[in-house]
């Protein structure tokens, strides 16, 4: 990693804290699922924290993001609170969506998160539409469309990238290449170069190490600023890795990737461990400080999940509410 450059210590520590918050949230969500305390299933973001945090730390609250089925990380990074998130995962009334969306549809519009989406690539249109709104309404906000390498197989993405390029919309297409679309390696699903697909529309495309939060954030800051300045859209491939299976129940996965590969990423490429070591080496924080950060966050998360477990389900009358807006 490079020197601290433009970053002040407070910003750097906040990035560390946000990554730890995501990891902690996911660890607890996984425990909830495995202990059958959480209905349904969920997709873990663990391992990809530097992507969400590096990008969202470059955004303002009024900027928008669209998220994916693997969306807890984006939600936390865009400013969501543990209590409402756990409540949503557990189907409780206090959840961000009154328990009606769940893990795969969590949305937090107050912080600009237009929602996770359970259709792969399904939010590409929404993100591009949000960028069109910004342009039409004279706002200087930017929209980041998060999606995985799997979404590169969806036609919708190319239709909207084409229009975004034609109309110069302030949208950044963030392709989190975690190497696997569900249970299949991306090399079996994507021909040619991912970046080149965007470049064919005349969209400037970039590739960055998605495990390096500083590199991600540095690129994101540049692109967000340029997008605000009507220079968009942009496309970024962020090379990263998911530690868990496709979803929490995907335990035996050696048929599509080896335990050695997983161990390599966890031991050598972990975004939190490496960034923590860099903070210590740069004397921005001490080891004790970071331990304290992790413990504090774990305590906050434990309190939040305890609260959510005890919180009320929505009343039965809620089932027919919100089908239509007034």
């Amino acid at each position, binding site marked *: 990693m490079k020197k601290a450059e433009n970053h002040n210590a407070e910003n750097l520590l906040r990035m560390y804290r946000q990554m730890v918050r995501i990891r902690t949230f996911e660890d607890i969500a996984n425990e909830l699922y495995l202990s059958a305390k959480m209905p349904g299933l969920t997709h873990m973001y663990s391992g990809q924290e530097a992507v969400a945090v590096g990008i969202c730390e470059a955004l303002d609250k009024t900027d928008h993001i669209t998220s994916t089925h693997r969306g807890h990380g984006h939600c936390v990074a865009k400013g969501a609170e543990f209590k409402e998130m756990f409540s949503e995962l557990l189907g409780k009334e206090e959840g961000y969506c009154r328990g009606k969306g769940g893990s795969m549809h969590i949305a937090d519009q107050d912080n600009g998160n237009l929602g996770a989406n359970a259709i792969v690539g*399904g939010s590409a*249109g929404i993100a591009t539409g949000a960028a069109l709104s910004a342009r039409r309404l004279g706002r200087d906000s930017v929209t980041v469309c998060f999606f995985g390498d799997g979404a590169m197989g969806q036609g919708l993405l190319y239709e909207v990238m084409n229009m975004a390029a034609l109309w110069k919309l302030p949208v950044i297409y963030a392709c989190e290449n975690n190497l696997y679309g569900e249970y299949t390696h991306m090399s079996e699903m994507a021909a040619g170069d991912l970046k080149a697909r965007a470049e064919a529309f005349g969209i400037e495309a970039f590739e960055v190490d998605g495990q390096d939060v500083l590199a991600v954030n540095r690129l994101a800051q540049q692109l967000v600023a340029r997008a605000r300045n009507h220079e968009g859209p942009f496309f970024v491939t962020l090379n990263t890795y998911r530690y868990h299976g496709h979803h929490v129940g995907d335990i035996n996965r050696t048929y599509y990737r080896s335990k050695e590969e997983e161990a390599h990423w966890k031991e050598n490429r972990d975004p939190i461990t490496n960034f923590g070591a860099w903070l210590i080496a740069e004397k921005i924080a001490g080891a004790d400080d970071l331990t304290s950060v992790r413990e504090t966050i774990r305590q906050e998360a434990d309190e939040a999940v305890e609260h959510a477990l005890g919180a009320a389900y929505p009343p039965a009358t809620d089932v027919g509410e919100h089908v239509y807006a*007034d």
Partner: protein
Amino acid sequence: MREISLSQAVNEAIAEEMRRDETVFLLGEDVAEAGTPFKVLSGLVEEFGPQRILDTPISEPGFTGIAVGAAMTGLRPIVDLMFGDFIFLVMDQLCNQAAKTHYMSGGKLTVPMVLRTNLGATRRSAAQHSQSLHALVAHIPGLKVALPSSAYEAKGLLKTAVRDNNPVVIFEDKLMYQDKAPVPEEEYLIPFGQANIVREGRDVTLIGTSSMVQVAEEAADILAGQNISAEVVDPRTIVPLDEATILGSVKKTSRAVVIDEGHQSYGVTAEIASRIAEKAFYHLDAPVQRMGAMDVPIPFSPALEDLTVPTPQSVAERAGAAVRGELFHDA
């Protein structure tokens, strides 16, 4: 009162709403200078400019998805889908995204958008440009579905659709674009979920949608010659459906024929007929009759295509049989 075509009525509705509300804009294929193949939108781009009358590439899912996102973030898009048959292309954006967003977000996000498209056979357009697919979207909670039956209805319903805070799909009958009807100069809205009793009658209720309202009216004329008094009801919107007016009419006449241009199986006629059977059963003096498009892809040849849709004659025949107690169904 002046008479204008359905096409002009739609054009006026869009222009009036765009003048009233800066956030309203329209997007779709060939909507600007071309004004659509039916010339419904001619003149709008000259008044509102290419930013608000936005020509898109031929990418139906893409521009529908963009409309969903724009609607979630402060605009009120009107999507122009050139043919109703293309609705299959936009199903994910319409049914998985637009329809569910308000509910999935617990009421926090709204999608105030209109998708304008068309329906109707007998234009010799063959199987992929002739379908009436409104039942598909009417099946999905979260979408509203309007079916104007005249120029007057088209203007009033479209203006209401633009002001609604939900995704609304409005199907215009492509054969009716040049049909003229009295339309007042002054502004008016037609509320959703309020059926129109087009004509009052005593012996049988003909419930027709879209262009089938005209068919029902002509059938009522034929029946009048047989001393049978038919009531014609136009639901106007099938979601929400004005059940009270339909049931009230059937309770009065004791007989019902439901006419809709969608395929007969699993469609709008089935839904309305079953609600009548459920909620007005003891008032029925004859089996409820359903008349939809034949369950075949719409054929090209005029000799075949004309056989696929209900006609005034076939409706009058069926309604007359119901009134005379001639519907035995081998019971």
